[in-house]
């Protein structure tokens, strides 16, 4: 009963971690997980999130066993 969290790039540096595990709770959203990780700090305006490697919104609800990733705007190419 857990959520696996991944952080990338500048977000990983600012939170000083690249991975985390949280106990799953019914009704958890992407936004509530961010609040938990960041000790209540607002999410950066342009933060991006993905559940199981597919883009999602901060309001999206999580399921037990999901992999949730947070990252800044992408800058490849």
């Amino acid at each position, binding site marked *: 009963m857990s959520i696996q969290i991944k952080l990338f790039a500048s977000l990983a540096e600012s939170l000083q971690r690249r991975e985390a595990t949280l106990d799953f709770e019914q009704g958890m959203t992407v936004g509530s997980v961010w609040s938990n990780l960041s000790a209540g700090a607002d999410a950066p305006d342009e933060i991006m999130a*993905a559940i199981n*490697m597919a883009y999602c919104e901060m309001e999206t609800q999580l399921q037990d066993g999901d992999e949730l990733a947070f990252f*800044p705007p*992408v800058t*490849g*190419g």
Partner: protein
Amino acid sequence: MTVIIFDKPFDPWDELQRYQDQHAEMVGRFGATAVFVGSMRDFNENENVHAMTLEHYPGMTERHLEVICEAAVKQWQLLETLVIHRVGDLQPGEPIVLVAVWSAHRAAAFEASRHIMEDLKSKAPFWKKESLNNGHRWVSKNTPGTT
């Protein structure tokens, strides 16, 4: 349709030739090949850039690029697509990305290659960190794809 992530330098022209040689079934069917190669500059936003590190999200990056290419193949009836992207430590001048598409006619090739490249720039999970004269910085956004 192939997507490759390299953690070492690559020669886009060698990769292009090899890929085309491996797809002999296309010979005679394609009349247009559009190729985009993006390389690392030694400057950005009025600063000298000595080196760069490219981070990605293993699994999601490849999956996202495959979805982009599958959609482009359907939309423009492409014969083949090849996308190669570097990760890891880069030096100025090194290729970062190759996007190549093969189609019967040039309109589809031009439009599809641009579409794939612009989607990659805005949605594929890669992040650049630059080494400057006075430390490092994460690139916060890409430049626009139109002039």
